[in-house]
């Protein structure tokens, strides 16, 4: 029963990924004529346009090209960049670890902070701390990432000159160099996901606190702190993990802005540049990378909710 549910959810995730690949491909190839024209510029004659299309396989039927591209996603054959003619896989490969590292550090920093603050607020609902956290979190979700980033740059790079405004990591960078380069990008990403994660942790805990078992513990005279840490937290862990997974998926939106503002050579910067120059194979590959991560995190969130629901563990 439980295993079936999870398998079904994973199958749904794979189906979603397939449909997403269809939309990515169809979306980026609606105007194939334009791709050739965009790359060759205004001086292109009809002959050179036709030759270019033939070379890039743009003259073949769309479904053939889709099938080839789709299977290429699994074999690593992602086609050649229209701008540089280099294989897309070779361009993306060195950038993948950089983006994953940026997102990973942001998660490592933001998750404990958000859960801690949410727990602390849940211990004192309605207190001064709780209320200012509520208003503060509305302020933080309203701020565009580039406002946070520019203020950080102004303070730490321009005025104090503690940190570099450009996050550049050399291939043989030591740990300290990475920390210095990534501090501001990680802080910006943290600001983007902190508030919802914190507020939802708080409401998950408060939700559990309204259960009869907790009322029983209160009536037994267990101190509030012990109730939260020993009784409420274990029961709230599943909803909190769910919240974390959903919010980590939202780091993706922030990564695009953060990599651009700090000139960080990751996949997101590559995608933004690719969209600007209409380098379709690059855009397609980057979009699939980000969508796969997004779908994976949402899948994890759902699987955790299924595992956490005791009613689903036994067949009716």
């Amino acid at each position: 029963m439980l295993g079936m549910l999870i398998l079904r959810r994973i199958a749904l995730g794979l189906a979603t990924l397939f449909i997403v690949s269809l939309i990515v491909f169809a979306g980026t190839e609606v105007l194939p004529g334009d791709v050739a024209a965009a790359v060759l510029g205004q001086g292109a004659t009809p002959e050179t346009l036709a030759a270019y299309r033939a070379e890039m396989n743009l003259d073949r039927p769309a479904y053939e090209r889709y099938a080839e591209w789709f299977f290429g996603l699994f074999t690593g054959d992602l086609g050649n960049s229209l701008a540089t003619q280099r294989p897309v896989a070779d361009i993306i490969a060195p950038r993948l670890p950089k983006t994953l590292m940026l997102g990973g550090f942001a998660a490592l920093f933001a998750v404990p902070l958000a859960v801690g603050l949410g727990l602390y607020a849940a211990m004192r609902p309605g207190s001064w701390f709780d209320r200012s956290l509520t208003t503060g979190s509305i302020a933080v979700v309203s701020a565009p990432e580039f406002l946070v980033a520019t203020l950080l740059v102004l303070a730490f790079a321009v005025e104090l000159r503690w940190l570099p405004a450009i996050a550049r990591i050399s291939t043989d960078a030591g740990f300290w160099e990475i920390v210095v380069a990534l501090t501001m990008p990680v802080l910006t990403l943290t600001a983007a996901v902190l508030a919802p994660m914190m507020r939802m942790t708080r409401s998950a805990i408060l939700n559990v606190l309204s259960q009869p078992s907790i009322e029983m513990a209160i009536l037994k005279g267990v101190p509030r702190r012990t109730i939260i840490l020993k009784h409420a937290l274990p029961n709230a862990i599943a909803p909190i993990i769910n919240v974390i997974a959903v919010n980590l998926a939202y780091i993706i939106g922030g990564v695009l802005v953060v990599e651009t503002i700090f000139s960080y050579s990751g996949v997101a910067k590559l995608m933004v540049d690719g969209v600007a120059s209409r380098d379709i194979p690059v855009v397609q590959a980057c979009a699939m990378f980000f969508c796969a991560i997004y779908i994976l995190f949402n899948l994890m969130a759902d699987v955790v909710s299924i595992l956490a629901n005791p009613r689903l563990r036994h067949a009716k």
Partner: protein
Amino acid sequence: MTDTSLPAPPPKWQLPDLGLLGWMSVAILVFWTFVALFAPWLAPYEESTILTNQSFAPGEDGNQMLLGSDYLGRDVFSRLIYGARLTLGLALAATLLAFVFGVTLGFVAGILGGRTDDVMSRINDAFVSFPSIMLALILVSAFGSSLWLLVLTIGFIEATRVYRIARSLAQNIMVMDFVEVSRARGESLWWILKNDVMPNAFIPLSTDFGLRFTYSILLLSSLSFLGLGVQPPFSDWGSMVKENMAAMNYVLFYGIQVAAAPILPAVCIFSVTLANNLLVDWNLSRSQKDISGELID
């Protein structure tokens, strides 16, 4: 003899109790609406007039530029005023578009149900499984980013989100007892839509309108900041941040007020989204919900 007169009817409309933050938010939104509407009369200069050949000239040099010049020597203050027009206008147009299509299709799916609902909702699910900025990048790389295309792109993305809410609202209302009564009375679906569904869906949808407007502003600004949204010669607040980022290198020579060129447009965006979110939160708190639960998409 008993008094048969009814108690005095409640006053038809009274000022809502918004609190200090709420009224400040209203004031900010009214202010920006005014600025956007009357931009040509409020701005001291045209938005694209080049007044000096100096990039990021500070404002106090007697050059009549309140906040100094931008990277091309244009008046930052005037451009902020014109930027309100494009940012708020495009975002509002996109939100309206999203609501017209999202609510219409969502109501159709929610009321008709069955096969129609299945097909429509599965197609919609496909688009909802993208992060919205990712969908925006794909659409922009395919179609480009003229002002109209930006409105259509953002309107389409938000419409897929509005659809889900409108559909589930309609579904929940359609199983209510009073709809059952209307059906038993033999009312048409159109009558039920007009008299049962719409009035009951109005308040939640109006809250969602506020949220969608915020998302549209942030999505448009992010696109413009990435250089993929509003293109020159037009500029909105997001593209002003992008084009003036180089001012950070001039802070050393001219002082910190030079940083106004990239930072003030971002602060303007923030003032609108914050005011909007505070009002949405006030609206939600009346129905005992929590903005952070809503503010994740």
